[in-house]
């Protein structure tokens, strides 16, 4: 079980490293709706194929942004919890 978990972790990490991050949006310290609105605006300005990294420390938005992005037609590459109330979300623009 533990080995499997570790495997999953390393897999994810190596996979993330393969992706070139085009831009980073730092939303730490922001509460809703700022992370949601900012990421929506940012994504609209980016070109297809580019990857946006979103750093966030607000739980509601961390759960909601991936859903919003999916409904906008973009691909959510990963949602990683990086620490206490900290998340890193990777979005590929379609």
């Amino acid at each position, binding site marked *: 079980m533990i080995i499997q978990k570790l495997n999953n972790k390393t897999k994810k990490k190596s996979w993330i490293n393969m992706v070139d991050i085009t831009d980073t949006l730092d939303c730490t310290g*922001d509460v809703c*709706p700022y992370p949601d609105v900012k990421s*929506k605006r940012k994504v609209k300005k980016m070109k297809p194929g580019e990857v946006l990294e979103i750093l966030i420390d607000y*739980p509601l938005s961390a759960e909601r942004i991936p859903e919003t992005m999916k409904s906008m037609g973009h691909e959510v590459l990963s949602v990683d*919890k990086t620490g206490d*109330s900290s998340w890193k979300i990777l979005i590929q623009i379609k």
Partner: protein
Amino acid sequence: MDFWYALVAGLIIGAIFGFILQRGRFCMNSAFRDILLLKEYKLAKAVTISLAVLMVGFAIFAFGGIIDLNPRPFKPLAAIVGGLIFGIGMVLAAGCASGTTYRVGEGMLGSFVAAIGLTGGALMTAAGPLFEAKNTLQDIDLGQITLFGEFDTTLTPVWMIIVGIVGLVLMFYFWGWPAIKKKREANEPMIKMENFKEATFKKGWPWWVTGIAIGIILTAGYIASNGVVGITGGWMDISQWFTTSNIMVWAGFIIFGIILGSFLSAYIGGEFKFRVPKDGFTLVKQFIGGLLMGFGAVTASGCNVTNILGGVPQLSLHSIIVGAFIVIGCWLAAYLLFMWREDREPKEKKLKAE
């Protein structure tokens, strides 16, 4: 009410309330604002379902003679002005009265500043420079009117139970049933028991769980104190406890309970972190938002919890009007703050291109 009873019952009910608020990310500011801003309806659905549960809950215990219903008297001017200002304030403060309180327990400095603003605004209005303004607004008093005429101790609970049950059935038919059907078609199990612990303590709750849980805990709160649970009064109570020799009462312990419960919930879920907004001006905005909320709450005889989650289930016309104007104020402020500029941007670009 006995001090020890207030302490124990207030802390326990407050803590469970805080736990639910944090797990469900239950904030009416997000609920109302995001209908307009993000076309996101989950929290709004949670509010509606909690209202239906509260209607049925209050009515049952009113029939049993355990609680006395007491809808707010209808003060139209106070309801409109107070609700509108409260709604604008909560967008600036980035959280309604309950949302702000539970985020204090999550470690958000901005929300703490907003809570201080809320207390200050409320005190100024209850007995301070804004006292006269509030009295003038509250001058017109039309008595305890409900949606179905004058308040009546036997007839009103009957209406409450009818509206509540019809509401629950409609919600199940339109929101619940399609979701269950979808799960059946996908052959997913209805409840995943093996993830129960993680789903309860580590993840955000589904909207319907949050809504039902809020309905149950606030019914328990009404039973324990024979009155609606309030937030603004609680903060005022705490400030009096700090500054005068008054001992703390029920409402203040509820606030401490909420902060404690939300802290525990956030800590267990790995979501507690001391957070400060990057932009210092955000704190100023949140403080001003808090002040506006405080004025609105005292003028409208209650914040969003007292009026929407306490008064609307009793079908009080006053609370329904307050609730409607909280939503209008919230949309107005959200539009001006977040959408107006965005609407204009493309036009400006076009002009430049020309």
